[in-house]
């Protein structure tokens, strides 16, 4: 018995002596402007301007719960926002803090547009350039409940390539369920990860014309929804840069990358800023399941 005591002591000590983690101070990047844009048609444009924030400081943002309002100090208010093309400059009006819009954008497909923002509060300027892209038409789509499964739906959609050059597209989806999600949204929880892996939620589809057959793209998808009530789908013809921007987003937010922790620098076309300035017109449809 006496001979086992030192061994037992060693065992206990082995599993109990865990050193405390050390803090690490990481200098944070200076605050910069983030651009998001949405074109409803060739003349109606909205720009949302926000600010970057420190990764290590709280700004009242709970990333796990999107029901909270956007923190006001991250919105860029009182900025001078201009869009210029072919010598014509339009100033966007601030319709609420951080949101700037115009209804009279001279939208011409193929033209180059320059966005200029002068942030008077912080003394920062940003510039970005993009082209206005041809609108793609979502000519076919359907959605139906899968007969054998309770919460599974089948979606089909198809569209034609807009032209012979290289093209890229994004298809966004909107779903609203009658029933609430049974699991709380905790990104680190194992059950949440498993649920995300197994339940085929709609995200967005990124498509290049290399995936097309004879200039046409079609796909049938299944997805899970808790008593689907409202469904929306929008097809947008996008630039290569925006395609890369969305691809990087997807990779960063994937479950596999959350496990791996790989570095993914998100591309941007905003000089001295982040986000993406894009002039791309969606072809969008919404319906209720009764329809």
């Amino acid at each position, binding site marked *: 018995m006496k001979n086992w005591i*030192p*061994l037992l002591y060693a*065992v206990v000590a082995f599993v109990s002596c865990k*050193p405390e*983690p050390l803090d690490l101070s990481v200098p944070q990047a200076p605050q910069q402007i983030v651009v998001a844009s949405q074109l409803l048609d060739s003349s109606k444009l909205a720009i949302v301007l926000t600010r970057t924030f420190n990764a290590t400081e709280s700004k009242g943002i709970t990333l796990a719960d999107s029901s909270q309002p956007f923190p006001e100090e991250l919105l860029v208010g009182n900025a001078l926002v201009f869009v210029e093309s072919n010598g014509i400059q339009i100033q966007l009006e601030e319709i609420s803090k951080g949101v700037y819009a115009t209804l009279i954008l001279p939208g011409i497909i193929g033209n180059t547009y320059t966005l200029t923002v002068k942030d008077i509060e912080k003394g920062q300027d940003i510039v970005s350039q993009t082209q206005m892209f041809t609108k793609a038409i979502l000519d076919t789509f359907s959605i139906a409940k899968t007969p054998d499964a309770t919460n599974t739906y089948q979606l089909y959609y198809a569209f034609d390539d807009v032209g012979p050059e290289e093209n890229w597209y994004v298809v966004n989806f909107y779903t609203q369920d009658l029933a609430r999600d049974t699991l709380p949204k905790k990104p680190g929880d194992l059950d949440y990860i498993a649920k995300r892996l*197994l339940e085929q939620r709609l995200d967005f589809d990124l498509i290049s014309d290399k995936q097309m057959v004879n200039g046409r793209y079609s796909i049938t998808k299944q997805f899970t929804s808790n008593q689907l009530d409202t469904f929306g789908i929008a097809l947008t013809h996008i630039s290569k840069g925006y395609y890369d921007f969305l691809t990087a987003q997807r990779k960063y937010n994937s479950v596999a990358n959350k496990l791996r922790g*790989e570095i*993914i620098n998100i591309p941007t076309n905003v000089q001295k800023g982040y986000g993406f300035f894009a002039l791309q017109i969606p072809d969008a449809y919404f319906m209720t399941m009764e329809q």
Partner: protein
Amino acid sequence: MKILFNAILLLLAYNIHAQNITVSGNIIDAQTGESLIGVSVSCPEELKGTLTDAFGYFSIDVPSGCLLTCSYIGYESTTIKVSRQLIMPLKITLTEKKVSIQEVVVYGNTGTTPLEKWGTGITKIDMKQANTLPVLGGERDVVKILQLMPGIKKEHDGSTGMLVRGGAGDQNLVLLDDAPVYNASHLVGIFSVFNNDAIKDVTMQKGGFTANYGGRLSSVLDIRTKDGNMHKHMVSGGVGLLSARASIEGPIIKEKASYIVSARRTYIDQMYKLVRSDLPFYFYDINAKLSYKPTAYDQFFVSGYLGKDVLDYENQKPDRIYQTDFSNRLYNRTATFRWNHNYEGQKLFQHSSLVHTQYRFNLTNRINQYEWKTTSTIHDYMAKLHYDYYINNRNHLQFGAEFTHHIFNPNQSVGSPAFTDFIANTPSNRITLNEGAVFIQNDYQPNAKLFIQYGLRLSGADAHEKLYTNWEPRAQVGYSLTSKQSVKLAYARMAQYMHLVTGASTLPSDVWYPVTDAIKPKLADQLTAGYTLQLPANCQFQAEAYYKWLEHVSEFKEGTIGFSQTDFEKDITQGQSRAYGIELLLQRKSGKWNGWVGYTLAYSKSQFDDLNNGEWFYARFDRRHDVSFVGNYALNNRITFSAVFAYASGSRFTPIIGQYLVPNGNYTDAIPLPIYGKRNGIVLSPSHRLDISVTIKGKQREKFASEWQIGVYNVYNRTQPYRIRMDVQPNGSIQYKQVGLFGCIPSVSYHFNF
């Protein structure tokens, strides 16, 4: 008359030269019959000397009447008078000294052969002596000893991965009886696959590479296993905190054939269960060897290694909706058949080998009834032919060839449909690569002061659509300034035809890929300069500086998941690296007090067009300063105290230095996106720790020997950062924490042999 006199002088000179005798033979341990590597065989009065090779062979031209002296640390020297009546090849036995003060003999260039005396970047370990040093959990590990030498760093605390002179982990050629070992680690790098009981000799080259080695850029770790006791059966083993091991060896035919089998198994999983915790991991490994010497001119060996790591994590809890399991298995196997032949001319030795090696890892994830499994494998089939020709005492010629048929299956993934939305199924993706090389090298020592080694290796790989070939010149020059000082200079070009591509993450998902028509071989040019000074009291000081240029080094492109890649060619990017530094070593090799102090100042940086905006960045393992203090004190013949203090600058990582929100596609949510800082731009806290141990030998008995080793690893419980943890706070902010792996770990182990 004058002409006649000169003619007689010439004739006498010819006769004197002609009276040189080529003495060759094999030197073995008198008790075990094991061949002894690195025994000094010299004729002091003629200032001629050589060392036995990896199989205990030697050949030397000396005049008749010379007193040939054979000496080896820890053994009684023996002297043989050379005459024409000696029957070659000789079989010389050396007897171990009965009383020897414990010493660690980790020496750089202390041998009397030219290469070991003047060559650069050579480190040898004496297995008998290295077992006194305190190591993690009391588990004796030769790689942990090597990591205490200048120029050889570890990836993180407790890791057995080696980063040599700025090179990544895949740039080390690790050979176990000629067989390459692709993963030399158990338990994500905490233990090496090498069982000390089975090992006879460890030699590492990190610069000034000889032409017979190739295929990797940064180092060659050549490990030879024991042959087995040729005289009697013996059992040895040990029990420690983390593992138990046993070894049995003995003669099959006395003096002619022997066997040795060594096995080891860890029981970490069982120890954790004792304290009601959970670490479902274990490993085991087995080394085995058969040796046969049918004639005085021939030796045959068959040796093999088998190792397996098992991690099975089950998260089966009744309150969970999803039952999740994760399992990771690593398999390592090697097999070597070798024939050594001494041609009757006695100056020509042939070493030929047939080798098979296999490495495989499996990752399996299960969620309820859904499963996803990924597998990566490598098989090698290799043939090697190597000749040593001792032309005369000034010239030692080596030449040979080798061929390897590699079979890679880098990533085979099969999963239930639920998983394949984000990780596509990839069928078996079998890729073969044929790699070969021829080499020739001469060691030329015109006098006692100067040594020149020059060689050339021509290597190539057939990647089916492309044939790569590379000339790899090698050269070393050593010069004795005085009897106590020498300087040396070396250059080597190395080529590597496969890549182990790692991501930024520390998760074990590294996969080996061959070169293809798109992925080029890695190349390295290394220049080394060194200085050695012999000091009083058996001390030695060495300094070496190196500069290394590396081309076509590989990394994954950003966002690559690694083990789930379906088309690795598109996801690998190649760039360039530079590594340079200075290594200092002061050591005392024997005596009651012995040990060494080592210091390394090293830089390593890389540039890839696809990473870090094409700018140069420091490597993740660029740990600028590395210091080791190693000391042994032999209180008496039974008790030895040992201590190790190791300091290393922190490794590097890429932080998130900001965030921003963008709307999702339908403007119903905001998605957080990161802003990364400069790649590897942040240096973690330095690691430093103190380890102590005492080795107590049991009472001397004729047939049974034992010893206890009691130690403490990381005495003051310092955190040795090995990874970064991002703690997301309830308010959404992120806090970085540097997490350590091991704290203060006491250990006790018992070793025996009979």
